[in-house]
């Protein structure tokens, strides 16, 4: 404990020393910090290996959604228009991204792992209309790739509900 003026001068020395250090700021658009592997970003809808959609239009995701941003309208699969693997399929599947809070409950609610949350987070738009994602947009592979940290190093173990269901 040194007297007050000395401490103040020490403070001045400290701030002065920082001038010669490299700033620790990460320059975002140029440098993108690798994301945590289970970062919850933009949604994706998935297909089976044979090309059929996994979603069967059960609306459980819409029911689980706390922000009420998912809209599903189901329709019957017919022999000449088979879209999904189940009895029915989602004729309309929309997510209003301006309302989504990225909680991931839709992912938990889905019985077929048809919807997951991807890693993309750069989803700003100039119009609110553009933030309503349709099924085609959600089924398409993500347009932008974001760096993701090595899952072996940074991911947590597979959660209980995924291994015991």
């Amino acid at each position: 404990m040194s007297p007050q003026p000395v401490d103040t001068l020490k403070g001045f020395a400290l701030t002065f020393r920082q001038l010669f250090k490299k700033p620790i700021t990460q320059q975002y658009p140029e440098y993108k910090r690798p994301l945590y592997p289970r970062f919850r970003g933009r949604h994706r809808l998935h297909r089976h290996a044979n090309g059929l959609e996994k979603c069967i239009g059960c609306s459980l995701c819409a029911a689980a959604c706390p922000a009420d941003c998912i809209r599903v309208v189901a329709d019957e699969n017919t022999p000449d228009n088979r879209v999904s693997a189940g009895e029915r399929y989602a004729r309309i599947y929309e997510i209003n991204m301006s309302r989504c809070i990225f909680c991931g409950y839709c992912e938990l609610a889905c019985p077929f792992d048809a919807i997951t949350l991807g890693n993309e987070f750069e989803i700003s738009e100039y119009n609110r209309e553009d933030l309503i994602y349709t099924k085609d947009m959600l089924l398409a592979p993500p347009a932008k790739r974001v760096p993701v940290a090595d899952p072996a190093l940074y991911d947590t173990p597979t959660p209980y509900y995924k291994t015991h269901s």
Partner: protein
Amino acid sequence: MTEPWWISLIKALLIVNLLLLALSYTTWLERKLLGRMQNRYGPNRAGPFGLLQPFADLIKMVRKEAFYPAAASNLPYIVAPALSATTALLAFAVIPFGAGWTIYHWHVNGAVASVPIGLIVIFAVGSIGIYGFIVGGWASESKYSLLGSMRTCAQLVSYEVSLALSVLGVVLMGQSLNLTQIVDKQGETIWFIVPQLVGFLVFFIGGVAETSRAPFDLPEADTELVAGYHTEYSGMRWGLFQMAEYVNLIVLSALAVTLFFGGWHGPWAPLGPLWFFIKLAIFVSVFIWIRASVPRLRYDQLMRFGWKVLLPAATINALVTALLVVWI
């Protein structure tokens, strides 16, 4: 020595524009230095090293909506920022930046206006500038603005006393109120920082408070309050208040250089205005350094320090100097 009026006019135009340029780059320097002292980059997007940032800010402020409170009283609300900015710029007119030159057969003074009572002009003009703050806060018709402007004025008025007393020693030693003569005297003898160290310290601390910068930036106190007297201002009117603040900082640094650090005289090489500019830049940087290092004072601490420490120190310093000047 007198000079034709048109030389003064050209000089005034030149100095005002230089001052505006210096002010905009003071904001850049402040943000850059503060950033580096906090391990950040500071502005680095607009132009190389963010050098175009002041112009980007200017364009932003001009194009922004100038919010106008419905209950504000029209004329004072608009005049207040202009008054502050004008008086701030005006104060620089009497500050000498060079020894004066003879170009062709005209004599050019080293200051825009070489008045015999330059020092008093600066303090007088600075006091008028305070009206801008109090009128602006009052005319906004908002209780927070009014309280903010009262706080500002209480601070500025109390520190102005010590500030004026602290330069008394310099006036006694320089035996003039003309800034050019004070600088000449320092060139003949010694920089007044040496015999007037106490006076300088009081002047410097009082000056930090007078320009309402950290740790005395209670008028603004952006982390605790929204703002002070300029709460209801936006766009370029707010910009003018901000401009007044920065010009005041530059004028105060220039005054410190003139009164205590020998003005345009350097330790070697007669570079003239360049020395003045270098010292000015160092002073401005020190002000920024203080802002990066010291936390803000509480209001009662501010008042107690002003009246119970600075004022007695300045008074005693002036008295002792007077006695020494008379006896030696």
